[in-house]
């Protein structure tokens, strides 16, 4: 699947296109198919995203979206060395699925 990501213009937070808007949770990411660049152009013009780009990802059997590249997996969760700062610090799997 193809997923759109970028940073929120005002806060800088990592965000994922969920089909209607932007979410900070990678599991909300929608498959953008071939329409990623078009969506990005609209969202960039509306100043809702900064530095947006389209990445490859896969949806596992558990339904979770896993970006193909480690850099985007780290973006999705947070620094691997600061589990207290990840999006889901209570998640026992936090950190392990990143790599």
């Amino acid at each position, binding site marked *: 699947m193809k997923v759109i990501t970028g940073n929120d*213009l005002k806060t*800088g937070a990592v965000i994922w296109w969920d089909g209607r808007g932007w979410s900070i949770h990678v599991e909300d990411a929608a498959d953008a198919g071939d329409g990623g660049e078009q969506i990005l152009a609209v969202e960039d013009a509306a*100043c809702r995203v900064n*530095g947006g780009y389209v990445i490859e990802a896969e949806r596992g059997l558990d339904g979770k979206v896993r970006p193909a590249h480690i*850099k985007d997996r780290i973006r999705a969760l947070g620094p691997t*060395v600061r589990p207290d700062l990840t999006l889901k610090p209570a998640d026992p799997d936090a950190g392990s699925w990143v790599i």
Partner: protein
Amino acid sequence: MYKYDHYDQAMVDARVADFRDQTRRRIAGQMTDDQFKPLRLKNGLYLQLHAYMLRIAIPYGTLDSRQLRKLAHIARTYDRGYGHFTTRQNLQFHWIKLEQAPDILAELAEVEMHCIQTSGESIRNISADHYAGAAADEIMDPRPWAEMLRQMTSFHPEFSYLPRKFKICVIAAEEDRAAMRWHDFGLRIVKNEAGEVGFEVYPGGGMGRTPFIAYKSADFVPQHQIFSYLQAVLRVWNRHARRDNIHKQRMKILVHELGEEEFTRQVEEAFEHILRLGTDFPQAEYDRIAAYFEPPAFETGLRDEIDRSDPDFAVWLDQNVAAHKAPGYAIANISLKPIRGIGGDITAEQMEVVADLAERYSFDELRVAHTQNLVLPHVRKQDLYAVWQALRGAGLADANLDLVTDIIACPGLDYCSLANARSIPVAQKIAERFADPARQHDLGELKIKISGCINACGHHHAGHIGILGVDRKGTENYQLLLGGSGDEHTTQAKITGPGFDEDGIVDAVERAVEHYRTIRESGERFIDTYRRVGMDGFKEAIYG
């Protein structure tokens, strides 16, 4: 330390107002990202992996308690409670919101700080020996010169659109504690036979993908001509630089391509011309600035003896405390490299502890080292025990300065959008492997430096043991290098061979270290042994 005059303050305040307006217009959609990006970068605001990152200049690594408390306040109010000291003596916050960035710049301006020229094709924060003004072996305090050059080059039109970034370092001792020859323009303050002050000049150094060690272009440039000499160097670079290729724009590439002899000839020709223009600063201006760096009022008649009855304190004393120029005083180094910690990171609470200690025990001064540690430069020896106790209470008393666990590591792929691999976890695993204090002290001085990409922010080219993270088909891979140094015998590290995965690199480092331990001669540091025996034996030990 230097205090802003009304011109400095007006310039910085005006810049904050400009940036506030620019940010407002960007958020309102009146500017595209392409238009806004160079403006935010000129104010040290990057977009990194998780958020915006703000890089704050700490000129020549000097801070006072008021400034550090402000940084603690910013960490707590606008970031996530901590900051990260870099190898350029700067501080970075990694969780900044664009909409709050102008407020942060305004807060920094209140304490005479800013982020100007911490990014872009400009003259970056000028670095200096972190023992400046305190070191027993220095000819004079190099910071007035660093400040002079900072003032002469800030907002200078000829230096605002350089071919690429340009880094200056000033030291004033035989021992190089600031990696001076890894800079575009390194200066060592010297005295000639007549006792006059001048500079040895070393242009053309730099790390990154094409590392070069600066060469000596001049044995003695009289002190009052140094700005003309700098202009001459920049003029030659500006004239020839390859602006068509970002990988060939740094001045080191030009020096390499022209050759040292021809580069020097052209610089001397330009120097002769520029000298006649009379653009060097007048003595009165130097005197005005130097007055800010007058030594503090050191007490006389202090005892040199220190009570070493607490064994843990004695270990810290031997490892982290350096000789001071004034009798009865010492330089206390604060390690930011706890085992299992993140090198260079410091919490808001720790910043406040250090600020209190600087105010109470170190004439309100502290320093940032390029090694990502802090320094209390002027501590009475009789106060060292109290300082150590306070540091220990804040988790800042690791006695590992310059040892195997005092590792330089860039933020790497955990934070940085340029990185190919993570640096911090590798540093943590190595530190944990060598955590035993007895083992660390037995190994002695051993400088490990880790970069998460070829840009070399973690100084891997200058590591006794260097590690470079690369991306190999989407997975992290680590190259091992040996034999680098950033001291007065600067050398460039060499790659040992094929790379390793994250666990493999830790094992490889240990094999190299054990090989050293096995073959070292009495009194030899790791780097000494490497220089004596060369790469082959180490390679065999590492790869079998």
